[in-house]
């Protein structure tokens, strides 16, 4: 309690009018008492009868897909929604009828195994979600039991109406009504990062009436009842009223604390639970994320349809021939094939009903040829993707040490999509930048201070040296060097200049100006100091990172702001005369808030000598006009410096001040207060005018330059991605100047580029806006945007031959018009013609719309990357959403598909993991189809020799375990381990990435080529075996071959061919692949020996087949050498010719690597540059 007492300041008073107003603004009050306004909450009596009837949900939150009861039916249903699985289900059921060409058990077991495997995977995933849920559900919170006693209770046990006490830095367990806090005026600070991604603290304030309830014992007899809106997803509205001590009080969002936001800077609060569990606003917001399927999978479905078509064709052809042959069995009442007894036969073969028999046969054939459809494809893909995800999650190169965050692929569906990204749509703040401002430079009294080198300058220097790749490679090291250089880096301060640091500024000319400059930094802000009681260190809570940077800078210069009361600001100042630190307290008279229209803020203070000062800082565009005649001493120099800073990608502010005498102040303050207290509609205009009067005739002090520090490695990463042919669009809420600066900083924009800027800043439109005629504004704006787009397009045309590149910069207002249906295609064409696109001042909705436009307009894969809640729409709309998990905000991460800690990891994620996953999965799918066709088609060919009666060539069990036992491991090892080129080469040759973008590895040509190879192999195997073994004696004992021997021989050949084919197709053999391939072949021999040694009841016609018949016969071995090698020759020849004469990129690079290895020139930078250029 003692700690709390100290803090009992009426802090809310500092925020003259801005804070309260800000949150009021967002409200659009729904009609009170309308529908959806029925909730009753009885505070502090959660167990009373009335609360019981409402039966509000528990605070238990579940995000799992299934529960114990629904798991089996629901997951089965999910699985059989897939066409292939449904087909297998149907054939599985049919296999219990006499139609089946094989025994039912052998047909159904693979399906069962596949289904169970998938269900186990689903179950495990859901279990993990359940564990996460239960972690949250079991967090503890203090809940009022009775008689003013608060006990720890688990979150899940909270009930509506409970009174809870939440302590500092804890999350709110449910949506609460704020009753009181450790502050006297019942305010508290809330961080809503998890909800909207905003990092600044929000101020909440309880109703005056409850603010005194700030002790546990107060709640002994507290009773109140609440009427409020029904659960809804709107975060910024709340309508309700409270009845307390027989008085009605209306409630606003200002009193509502939302679940998943965090209490900050406040010791504790008391609150009443209003919404629990799934009723809370954050859960109401959690819509099921759109399920995304990758391009490859969608195409794979098409291929499966192609295979179905093949299957139906084969079955159809077979049925017709079968029907004709069956009809012939009975000619004029005489049996032809008498040994089939067509006179006394089941309907399936009845010559009298040949057509019907043919139809039944069709069903049989569908079952028989089911090997065309790879049953284990889906489950194999899922297992492979799961492992690929593991590789992404475990990649040590994507682990961010500082935040202790590894990459996290949240869905395994989209791994391969990462290898096909054509356009990246990126957020700026927090994504490209750290969202932490650093004070780097300043210009005081016309002198520029600060030697720091910004990212932009570094990038420019890098370009001049012409060795960006080398620089990129050493980037990781640079970062470490930087850390070592500055002994103790201070967050937000990266200023290096001996002339002003460590109190040396007293020796500079214009020492008085410098002093005023620093003092202004220390005083003119709305930050709060936070003194760590143990170390005495001061940290600041500021509304924006910029402000924090200023206060920190002031502290570093020797002007330590340490205390703030409602009426004063205390600063520990360095006195140039005495050289000592002196405490100075400034009486805070008024704060003129910052807003985006004013682009400046001021404070009015009275210093210890009684002078009244107006301290003002603001954007150069507004500030220079406000400098008085006698304040222009350094204007020219400052302007020059500001321009230099802007070019260096820095955010600049101009600092100026003004002294007022008492009378003048009184006069101005009176006007200002009148304006503030007016309740007319033009209150804002009046305030604006009053403030304008105060902030004029200023005296220029200088300018600051703050760097919105780019994340490490962003320019290099963007460079690499650009080299990889990926287009990058930046969609930011920032203003145009900042966006352009950052564009330069991260090498998205370059000096040589021609900028096409589309905005609505033209004088005519501004004039129209003043007039307020909405229709006219819309019309004029639209025309203007259309004109600008058309002009832009004209600029593009002549340049198509020249090397000039373009950058498109468009602001949010124009974007709104450009995204309208009639203009969006034109806009897209223009945008696609430009190398870089930056959309500034874009709303979350616009981000999503732009994403959709690109996605649908180009038909290519888009990737959205962002960190805040405002990016959620974009992330969900894009084919792949990447969340930056750098800061604490989880909203973007929760709706992303992959979360990474830093933008620069995108390079590795796409160029290495994406490329590999794409390659692995496409190869795997192609190979899957190959192996199933190679097997399935032999069955069809055999049918041709068995009058299409539906008798399979192989033993039942051999048929059913083909996919599971002998060919699944190699194909999975291919999907898991295959690497065309190593990670190093993927990064060295980013252009390789285009293979995925152009989808060369999954083109119909390649797929059909593999299928053709399957047909070819099957044909060679079938005819090779049958011609070689035909009808002559098979061994020295004179025995001839039967169905059993031919079947087993063909099967041996198929197993060899598909496994050896994999060996030819991959280019990366680890021990595991050897084991998989050779093991599968060995397994076949082991299997046939074991299976053959079982009793003849089980093994039927494979009884002792290998030991007795095959192994001792020379011809078996000769055939199984000849046929597989022959079957591989076509592919081998094709591959040899293609690689020699039409090599693909990765093949050339493979050779490069081999050559480098043999010549030992891998590390020659000159050589590498030649490669890349």
């Amino acid at each position, binding site marked *: 309690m003692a700690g709390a007492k100290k803090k009992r300041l009426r802090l809310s008073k500092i925020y003259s009018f801005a804070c309260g107003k800000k949150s009021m603004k967002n409200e659009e009050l729904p009609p009170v008492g309308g529908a959806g306004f029925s909730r009753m909450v009885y505070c502090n009596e959660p167990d009373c009868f009335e609360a019981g009837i409402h039966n509000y949900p528990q605070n238990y939150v579940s995000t799992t897909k299934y529960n114990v009861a629904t798991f089996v039916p629901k997951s089965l249903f999910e699985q059989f929604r897939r066409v292939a699985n449904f087909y297998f289900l149907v054939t599985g059921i049919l296999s219990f009828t006499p139609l089946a060409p094989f025994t039912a058990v052998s047909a159904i077991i693979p399906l069962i195994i596949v289904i169970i495997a998938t269900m186990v995977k689903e179950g495990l995933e859901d279990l993990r979600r359940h564990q996460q849920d239960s972690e949250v559900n079991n967090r503890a919170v203090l809940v009022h039991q009775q008689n003013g006693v608060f006990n720890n209770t688990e979150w899940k046990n909270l009930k509506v109406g409970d009174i809870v006490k939440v302590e500092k830095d804890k999350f709110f367990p449910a949506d609460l009504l704020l009753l009181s806090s450790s502050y006297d005026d019942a305010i508290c600070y809330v961080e809503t990062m998890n909800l909207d991604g905003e990092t600044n603290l929000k101020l909440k304030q309880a109703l005056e009436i409850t603010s005194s309830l700030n002790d546990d014992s107060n709640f002994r007899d507290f009773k109140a009842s609440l009427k409020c809106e029904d659960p809804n997803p709107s975060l910024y509205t709340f309508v309700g009223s409270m009845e307390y001590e027989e008085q009605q009080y209306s409630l606003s969002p200002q009193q509502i604390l939302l679940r998943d936001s965090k209490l900050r800077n406040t010791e504790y609060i008391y609150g009443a639970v209003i919404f629990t569990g799934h009723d809370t606003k954050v859960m109401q917001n959690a819509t099921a994320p759109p399920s995304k399927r990758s391009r490859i999978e969608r195409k794979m479905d098409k291929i499966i349809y192609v295979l179905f078509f093949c299957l139906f064709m084969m079955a159809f052809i077979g049925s017709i021939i079968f029907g004709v042959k069956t009809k012939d069995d009975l000619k004029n009442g*005489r049996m032809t094939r008498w040994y089939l007894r067509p006179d006394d036969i089941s309907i399936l073969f009845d010559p009298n009903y040949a057509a019907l028999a043919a139809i039944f046969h069709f069903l049989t054939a569908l079952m028989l040829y089911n090997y065309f459809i790879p049953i284990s494809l889906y489950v194999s893909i899922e297992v492979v993707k799961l492992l690929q995800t593991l590789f992404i999650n475990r990649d040590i190169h994507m682990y961010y040490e500082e935040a202790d965050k590894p990459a996290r692929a949240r869905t395994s569906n989209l791994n391969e999509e990462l290898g096909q990204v054509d356009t990246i749509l990126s957020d700026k703040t927090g994504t490209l930048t750290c969202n932490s401002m650093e004070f780097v430079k300043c210009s005081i009294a016309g002198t520029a201070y600060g030697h720091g080198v910004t990212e932009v300058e570094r990038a420019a220097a890098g370009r001049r040296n012409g060795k960006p790749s080398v620089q990129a490679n050493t980037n990781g090291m640079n970062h470490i060097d930087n850390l070592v250089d500055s002994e103790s880096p201070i967050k937000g301060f990266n200023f290096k200049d001996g002339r002003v640091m460590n109190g040396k500024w007293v020796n500079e000319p214009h020492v008085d100006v410098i002093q005023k400059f620093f003092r202004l930094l220390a005083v003119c802000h709305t930050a709060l100091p936070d003194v760590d009681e143990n170390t005495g260190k001061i940290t600041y809570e500021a509304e924006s990172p910029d402000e924090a940077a200023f206060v920190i800078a002031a502290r570093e210069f020797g002007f330590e702001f340490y205390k703030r009361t409602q009426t004063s600001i205390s600063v520990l100042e360095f006195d140039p005369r005495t050289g000592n630190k002196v405490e100075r307290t400034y009486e805070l008279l008024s704060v003129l808030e910052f807003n985006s229209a004013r682009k400046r803020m001021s404070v009015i203070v009275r210093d210890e000598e009684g002078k009244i000062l107006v301290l003002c800082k603001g954007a150069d565009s507004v500030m220079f006009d406000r400098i008085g005649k006698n304040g222009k001493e350094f204007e020219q120099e400052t302007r020059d410096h500001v321009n230099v800073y802007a070019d260096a990608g820095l955010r600049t502010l101009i600092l100026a001040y003004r002294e007022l005498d008492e009378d003048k102040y009184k006069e101005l303050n009176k006007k200002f207060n009148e304006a503030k207290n007016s309740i007319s509609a033009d209150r804002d205009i009046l305030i604006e005018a009053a403030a304008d009067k105060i902030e004029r005739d200023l005296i220029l002090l200088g300018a600051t330059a703050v760097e919105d520090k780019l994340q490490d490695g962003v320019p290099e990463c963007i460079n690499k991605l650009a080299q990889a042919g990926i287009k990058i669009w930046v969609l930011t809420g920032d203003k145009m100047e900042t966006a352009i600066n950052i564009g330069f900083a991260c090498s998205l924009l370059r000096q040589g580029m021609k900028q096409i800027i589309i905005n609505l800043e033209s004088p005519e439109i501004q004039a129209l806006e003043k007039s307020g005629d909405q229709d006219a504004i819309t019309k004029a704006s639209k025309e203007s945007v259309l004109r600008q787009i058309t002009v832009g397009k004209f600029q593009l045309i002549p340049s198509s031959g020249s090397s000039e590149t373009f950058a498109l910069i468009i602001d949010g207002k124009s974007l709104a018009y450009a995204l309208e249906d009639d203009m969006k295609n034109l806009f897209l064409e223009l945008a696609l013609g430009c190398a870089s696109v930056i959309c500034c001042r874009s709303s979350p909705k616009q981000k999503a719309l732009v994403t959709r436009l690109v996605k649908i307009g180009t038909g290519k894969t888009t990737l959205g990357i962002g960190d805040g809640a405002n990016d959620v729409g974009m992330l969900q709309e894009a084919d792949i959403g990447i969340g930056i998990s750098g800061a604490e905000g989880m909203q973007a991460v929760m709706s992303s598909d992959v979360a990474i800690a830093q933008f620069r990891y995108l390079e590795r994620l796409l160029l290495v993991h994406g490329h590999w996953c794409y390659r692995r999965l496409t190869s795997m799918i192609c190979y899957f189809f190959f192996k199933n066709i190679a097997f399935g088609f032999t069955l069809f060919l055999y049918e041709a020799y068995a009058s299409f009666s539906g008798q399979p060539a192989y033993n039942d069990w051999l048929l059913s375990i083909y996919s599971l036992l002998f060919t699944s491991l190699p194909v999975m090892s291919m999907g898991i381990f295959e690497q065309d080129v190593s990670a190093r080469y993927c990064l060295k040759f980013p252009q390789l990435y285009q293979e995925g973008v152009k989808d060369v590895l999954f083109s119909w040509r390649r797929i059909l080529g593999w299928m053709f190879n399957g047909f070819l192999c099957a044909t060679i195997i079938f005819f090779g075996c049958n011609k070689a073994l035909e009808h002559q004696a098979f061994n020295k004992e004179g025995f001839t*071959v039967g169905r059993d021997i031919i079947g087993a021989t063909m099967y041996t050949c198929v197993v060899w061919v598909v496994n050896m084919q994999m060996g030819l197709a991959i280019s990366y053999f680890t021990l595991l692949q050897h084991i998989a391939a050779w093991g599968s072949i060995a397994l076949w021999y082991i299997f046939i020996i074991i299976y053959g040694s079982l009793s003849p009841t089980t093994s039927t016609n494979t009884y002792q087949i290998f030991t007795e018949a095959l192994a001792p016969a020379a011809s078996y071995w000769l055939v199984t050498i000849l046929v597989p090698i022959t079957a591989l*020759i076509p592919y081998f020849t094709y591959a040899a010719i293609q690689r020699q004469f039409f090599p693909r990129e990765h093949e050339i690079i493979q050779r490069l690597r081999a050559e480098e290895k043999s010549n030992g020139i891998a590390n020659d930078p000159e050589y590498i540059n030649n490669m890349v250029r």
Partner: protein
Amino acid sequence: MNTKGATSSGGNDGNPSDSASPPPSKKNSKRPKYSRFTQQELPACKPILTPGWVITAFTVVGILFIPIGLVCLFASERVVEIVYQYEADCVPADYSNNVLAYIQSSDTNKTCTRTLTVPKYMKNPVFIYYQLDNFYQNHRRYVKSRSDTQLRSKAGEREIKNCPPEGTTKSGDPIVPCGLIAWSLFNDTYGFSLENEVLNVSKKNIAWKSDQEHKFGSDVYPKNFQSGGLIGGAKLNSSIPLSEQEDLIVWMRTAALPTFRKLYGKIEKELQANENITVVIQNNYNTYSFGGGKKLVLSTTGWIGGKNDFLGIAYLTVGGLCLFLAISFILVYVVKPRPLGDPSYLSWNRNPSGHLN
């Protein structure tokens, strides 16, 4: 990545002093553990299809296959084979327009005597086969029409699920062996004599041992066999157990293709070149209904089995093709050599406008 050096030194996990700014709680660090598996750096061989490899592979296959082919061909050539197609020959001229009446009548004389000349010395044993054409032993209905249980043991006598219409007699007694396969047992017989001296045909060891020992029971005797209205093929001696009925066992192992040979017996005597063998054929089996051929085959065997040049020719062809391809590749390589991994072939180097930024 050049950062590899930095990370791999940091990768020696468990060493808390390695990192410049250790995260506050090292114990709960989420840093992925380094392993070559998870980092995908497993040692691997990365073969590339270089011209050298291609040429070597083709040459090796060629050099191996041609001798194998020659050996196979030679072995096949050494096998002596006499094939006599008799289904048309053995029908008397007056029945040639009505073969079905001839074959289905029990009154006609089915005996047919012919003389075959031995082309070359035939080492004993000489195997006797019958070959049927266009006979679908692999028809699904036919293949399934048997009862393995019944064949194996007396106890399974009534297991006739798949056998109808040859499962039971009219009175409902089970037929042993049941089913269409047994019912249609081949019933032509051959007798051989060499210059009036009868050549003994051994019917022993013409079936697979595993069939005799494990699939056909020694306590199972034919019962009610071929007693129904429609007689299919051969009758069986009901006093001999099935395991001794080798003709049946051979027949029951169904052929893979519609043209097949089955072992009829062995002549344990060697035959000299130009000897004339008189064959007495009992032409009982009806292949005429479905237009199938019947052949009598006398053949010796070699290590490769019977006479079939396909294997040898295939080996030679494939071997020759490989050598040809090897030579073609060598020639191409000489005419148009091409350095390994020439970067100028990379598409972004070939096509300057394709170079982005």
